[in-house]
């Protein structure tokens, strides 16, 4: 049986966990700044840490792509624009433990030889913004940021930068454009940010949880981290359970834990109901059903079953929920958040929404299922960035697993479900 491993969440029950007093003394950063920067990159490579923002790219390898001695400034940008539907781990992490992030930033910036770092945090989380500003200020006051940190000769400026409401800015190149003061629209890759990122200079962009995990790797060693998880998905991560589960919340566990194990800890599906469908890692990851309860939640196993680990955002829906309604709402979200830069995504999400609305009202026909998958075929792989690809995930997977439920809408000329039964207060 897999058990929980509180590391980043360990101090969250302290009333002052968000202060330096409640966090500790940045001993990992202090040690790191006495090391060769390349040795830090190697340690993170050896740990097997993979990006916790959804894509799972090896973090150490990303750092290694930054050209050295190139005479250009380097930048570190933390992606704290957590907005993927279902994803709710970085926000409580920054609320309760912002110093883990700040310490990770110091270590990472030193490793990639960056003297300027940014936390790009979504704007709609005011108290988290306050906590970040306060943590950064505390770190400056202690001399952990600024000039000559730990008498190492290393200087680092850290800026907390609030976004302004745009899911697309979680896409790394859109984030860079936004941080440069433009509309947040993705850039063509290559060149990748490691070569031409912020201000066309070499830039590392990492997710909050990735960076916040770095101090623990430095403190305990790469082997310690690699000792958790599975062969290719090493370490721990925060699993966020939400929806029709008895005790929703944040569960920090080794990668490879299963939904069945997590549900056992969380008291199961809400009383009197059963699991119908769920997302392994946010709405952009194809849905799973009750046949996937024992899939190890690591990058490879989830991928082998046709979905993605994503952000470990486990949105749980019981049998009261209409899968077509869920798909329509996600589609409305993608249409709303599509940045408009490329035609397949901008037009495709718009038309998906129109067709799905008609289907939900029971006014469609079976040929419409071919239409929506055809539209999805014209978005997937043909749009500028991953937003378009993500928009197709609920379409394909819901039609794959719940085709009959779509058909039922046409048969009875409407939705067979009562939405009141899905609410927290509606179903007994």
């Amino acid at each position: 049986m897999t058990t929980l491993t509180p590391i980043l969440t360990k101090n969250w029950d302290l009333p002052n966990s968000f202060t330096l007093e409640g966090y500790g003394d940045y001993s990992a950063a202090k040690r790191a700044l006495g090391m060769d920067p390349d040795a830090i990159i190697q340690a993170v490579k050896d740990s097997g840490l993979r990006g916790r923002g959804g894509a799972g790219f090896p973090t150490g390898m990303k750092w290694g792509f930054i050209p050295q001695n190139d005479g250009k400034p380097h930048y570190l940008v933390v992606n704290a624009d957590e907005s993927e539907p279902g994803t709710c781990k970085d926000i409580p992490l920054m609320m309760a433990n912002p110093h883990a992030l700040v310490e990770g930033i110091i270590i990472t910036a030193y490793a990639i030889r960056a003297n300027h770092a940014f936390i790009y945090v979504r704007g709609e989380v005011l108290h988290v913004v306050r906590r970040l500003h306060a943590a950064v200020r505390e770190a400056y006051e202690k001399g952990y940021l600024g000039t000559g940190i730990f008498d190492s000769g290393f200087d680092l400026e850290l800026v907390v930068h609030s976004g302004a409401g745009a899911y697309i800015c979680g896409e790394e190149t859109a984030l860079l454009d936004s941080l440069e003061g433009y509309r947040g629209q993705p850039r063509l890759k290559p060149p990748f940010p490691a070569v031409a990122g912020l201000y066309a200079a070499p830039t590392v962009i990492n997710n909050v949880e990735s960076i916040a995990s770095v101090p623990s790797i430095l403190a305990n060693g790469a082997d310690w981290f690699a000792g958790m998880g599975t062969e290719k998905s090493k370490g721990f991560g925060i699993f966020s359970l939400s929806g029709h589960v008895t005790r929703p919340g944040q569960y920090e566990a080794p990668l490879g834990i299963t939904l069945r194990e997590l549900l056992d800890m969380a008291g199961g599906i809400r009383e009197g109901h059963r699991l119908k469908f769920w997302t392994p890692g946010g709405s952009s990851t194809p849905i799973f059903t009750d046949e996937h309860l024992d899939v190890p939640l690591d990058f490879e196993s989830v991928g082998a079953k046709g979905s993605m680990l994503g952000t470990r955002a486990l949105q749980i829906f019981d049998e009261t929920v209409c899968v077509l309604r869920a798909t329509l709402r996600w589609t409305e979200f993608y249409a709303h958040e599509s940045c408009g830069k490329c035609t397949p995504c901008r037009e495709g999400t718009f038309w998906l929404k129109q067709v799905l609305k008609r289907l939900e009202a029971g006014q469609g026909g079976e040929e419409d299922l071919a239409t929506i998958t055809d539209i999805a075929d014209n978005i997937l792989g043909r749009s500028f960035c991953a937003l378009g690809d993500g928009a197709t995930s609920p379409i394909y997977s819901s039609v794959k697993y719940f085709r009959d439920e779509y058909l039922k809408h046409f048969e009875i000329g409407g939705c067979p479900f009562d939405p009141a039964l899905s609410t927290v207060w509606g179903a007994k």
Partner: protein
Amino acid sequence: MTYSPEVRERLETDAKEIIGRYPKARSALLPLLHLVQSEDGYVSDDGHEFCAEILGLSKAEVVGVSTFYTMYKRKPAGEYHVGVCINTLCAVMGGDQIWSELTEHMGIGADETTPDGKVSLERIECNAACDFAPVMTVNWEFFDNQTPASAKQLVDDLRDGANVLPTRGPKKLCSFKDASRILAGIPDDLAGDGPSAVGPSLEGLRIAKANGWEAPK
């Protein structure tokens, strides 16, 4: 521009400090748009002009950016800007019912403000608090685990000037303008208020402790 010399001077002082944090001045545009929103309660014509002037951009460039982002309002938001999450999970858990009952109760719809200027309403997308569904926000503070009744009570209290507290936030709810100032990068001193974490945020830790589970040494 119709800003008085005093207002303009104050904004300029703040703006220059913000611009100074960035290697390139234009990076300050998003913070500056939050700043002018903190003055007017929306990004006004004056606000656009101010940002353009201080960054050496055309007004069209600034408008092009501000209209891309949903948090910049094009008409005055209420003193309390209320969001109801209607993304899939919150909608299913009750957000849809909250929205329909709340709009009926208030007699206003999406992106509208009550005649007294107190409360504006927005259908918000996922706000990264799904384990607290259904979620609402007021001036971007969390109001977790809402019901139709609690939502209606909340807006009534806001309109009556009663003391309303976020579930994970400070002991005082600031105005929309004050919130915009924090987002501009000029925080107030309330970071120490409120809990580190509550409820669902602590669920995994609580279970781990109860079972004596720890990370490997």
